[in-house]
């Protein structure tokens, strides 16, 4: 038997669907130029048409056809040489749309495998987000904002080919940079993209993450029931209605905390979270009323506390809040846990204001797609200025190469 390689690309549903597809296709194509055979596929059980939902693409490459079959005989790889996270907030863990529990971003990595993350943060910030792993692995960072290369519109920022260049560096056995260049010319006919891949190849560096580093929390999980433990027709009991909650300072009970599904929490969908200024809140109820996930707990003193075990980060609360700067959506990378903001505020109101103002500094570069018209062009300009991506020899830039690719038609549902 020859050698089998597996790479997973973890991405945000709909916003990065085509990006993930381009990367896994690019891997299979570059491997071909390296004399190998490979396949590219999306994880069928995912639901990548849903906003922000973590989803996966896989590329499997082998040195020969029979070895490739060993990989294709599985629904999906059980272990991978490389995990790619194309949105750094995914490093907090991945819960697909169905009942899987929360899976660490590095869960499938083989010993010595490499996690590649596109991020503007440094290694320490990323490692803090990732769950600890029982053996050492490599971390490689590719400087980048989360690329928005979704289902309907593909705004090219070269993230796809930059990752191919990075792979050639961290796992040269898979394919060489020369093979990547050939694949790019064949697939995209774009010398600027070749240049971006070369640059990523030159710049990418890795560091070892030891088992002592990372988030020590055990991600939530559950046992799948036996068939005879299920009710007929998969009738499942409703979530109980919920109950009053306690004030941590006065022990006064009151308000209402709805019970929530213990096996499907959905918060891995979140890329931003609301931070609430309880000092300016007028208790108008709009955030609580409009939240599509019923994530707000009603506190005994009638405030509305966004419960981070239930918040998907949609931003509706920020949009409907009538008080200026009372609710602010902040990038998820600024937070280390899902703790209650209201409890923090009750215990130390001055300290909370300091915390709040510090967090608001982390207002997002970009999340959930583009927030203003022309944002893509602005960001490409910044990336060129910062030297993240290149201009062409005649001064041409990526923005002149915007491609529209509606991608695969999807039935959704």
């Amino acid at each position: 038997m020859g050698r089998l390689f597996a790479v997973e690309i973890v991405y945000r549903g709909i916003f990065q669907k085509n990006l993930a597809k381009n990367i896994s296709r690019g891997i299979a194509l570059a491997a071909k130029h390296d004399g190998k055979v490979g396949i590219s596929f999306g994880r069928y059980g995912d639901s990548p048409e849903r906003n922000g939902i973590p989803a996966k693409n896989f590329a499997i490459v082998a040195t020969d056809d029979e070895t490739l079959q060993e990989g294709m005989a599985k629904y999906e790889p059980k272990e991978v040489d490389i995990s790619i996270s194309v949105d750094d907030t995914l490093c907090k863990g991945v819960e697909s749309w169905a009942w899987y529990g929360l899976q660490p971003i590095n869960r499938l990595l083989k010993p010595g495998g490499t996690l590649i993350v596109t991020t503007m943060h440094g290694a320490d910030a990323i490692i803090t987000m990732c769950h600890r792993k029982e053996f050492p692995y490599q971390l490689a960072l590719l400087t980048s904002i989360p690329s928005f290369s979704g289902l309907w519109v593909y705004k090219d920022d070269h993230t796809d080919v930059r990752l191919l260049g990075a792979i050639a560096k961290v796992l040269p056995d898979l394919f060489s940079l020369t093979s990547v260049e050939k694949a790019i010319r064949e697939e995209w006919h774009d010398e600027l993209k070749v240049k971006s891949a070369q640059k990523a190849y030159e710049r990418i560096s890795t560091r070892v993450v030891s088992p002592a580093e990372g988030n020590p929390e055990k991600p939530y999980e559950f046992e799948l029931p036996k068939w005879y433990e299920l009710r007929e027709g998969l009738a499942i009991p409703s979530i109980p209605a919920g109950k009053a909650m306690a004030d941590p300072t006065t022990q006064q009970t009151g308000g209402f905390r709805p019970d929530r599904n213990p096996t499907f929490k959905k918060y891995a969908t979140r890329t931003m979270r609301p931070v609430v200024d309880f000092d300016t809140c007028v208790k108008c109820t709009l955030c609580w009323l409009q939240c599509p996930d019923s994530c707000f707990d009603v506190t005994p003193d009638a405030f509305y506390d966004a419960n981070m075990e239930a918040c998907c980060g949609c931003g509706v609360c920020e949009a409907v809040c009538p008080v200026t700067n009372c609710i602010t959506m902040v990038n998820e990378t600024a937070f280390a846990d899902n703790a209650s903001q209201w409890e923090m505020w009750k215990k130390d109101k001055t300290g909370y204001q300091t915390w709040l103002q510090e967090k608001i500094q982390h207002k997002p570069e970009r999340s959930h797609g583009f927030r203003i018209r022309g944002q893509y062009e602005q960001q490409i300009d910044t990336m060129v200025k910062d030297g993240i991506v290149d201009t062409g020899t005649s001064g041409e830039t990526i923005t002149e190469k915007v491609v529209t690719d509606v991608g695969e038609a999807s039935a959704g549902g």
Partner: protein
Amino acid sequence: MAKVVEKAQQEKEALISGSEAIAVACKLADVDVITAYPIRPYDTVMQYVAKLVANGELDCEYIVAESEHSQFEIVKHASAAGARVFCGSSGVGWMYAFEALTVTPALRIPMVAMVGNRALDDPGAFGVEHNDALAVRDLGWQLVWVDNAQEALDTALIAYRVAEDRRVFLPCAIACDGAFLTHSQALTKIPPQEWVDAFLPPYNRGDLLLHPDNPITVAPQVNEDWLMELRKHNDEAMKRSKNAVIPEAYRDFERIFNRSYGNPFFEEYQTEGADIVLVGMGTLSMPVKVAIRQMRKEGKKVGFVRLRWFRPFPAEDLAETLGRFKAVGVIDRDYSFGSPHFSGVLATEVRAALYPAAKRPPVVGFICGLGGREVTVPDVRRMSEMVFKAAGGEPQPLITWIGIRE
């Protein structure tokens, strides 16, 4: 059933069609919700139900839907909310409801439906073929064929008893041959209400009931981690229906109604000492029985096995019975284009049932009576002759179309 039955009560005799017999069963079963959408021959039952409602004899929600799909969806939901329901259709109407038909057993809804067997379009045709009802054979529907109005009435009551048993909770379709059964009236005994009440307990959906006091979610979207377990659930329910619930229901029926159907799953007619048997479903039993009596007088030892329950299929029982004979002829009032040996559905199932059996007589298949064409006594004699030849060691074609112009 511990209930004491008042035997002094008498059955009343009425001249009614197979469809009307099922409508009467709906009344006796005190069905709560009935939906309807007209298509021949099922629409006769719809007319009789409407009449019972209009006459104040049946108190139920009677909803004429805008299509068969809605018709079946409405009763599916009503059943989930605890109502005893009845529904039905024919031919392409049944097919138009197909999505609703697939989700009904999957949701463990004990719906009872009548299929007035009708040829599938095109061309438009009213006559009987069994392909409409057979289309749901793999989905978790229980399927039973009856051949006269009395059996239609009795089997409808048994169908409620079986379907609504918590060990089963699967829908049951009673297949009635268009015209021969749905449209012909025969003297039928109508049992007193007290007997029916003693036989048929109220529908109790238990913790699967959709009700504000029992908040549940039914059948959420699932992925590959869940579905196989649910299929296994339904598989076991179908096994319990076959091995326990159907036999129990027929035993109780005989005790309370004083009418015996013998083996619940199939009727044996003049099989004693027979060399060969014919196997079929539905009203073709009439010409078959007439032909058998003729042939018996001539000293030809031929019998008939009329299968009632096609799902669950009594494979072991049937194989053991058929193993007693030298050859078996299976008459299909259906087709299965491109199936093994280009046979009918029943012949294929019978062959599959026989394969692991100790004794495997040759099976000669026949396609006959399609589109409501008459199955004649000479047809039956001709088929029997071929089966006799097979019994004598003279190989016969695996499938022959009988009664076709050629």
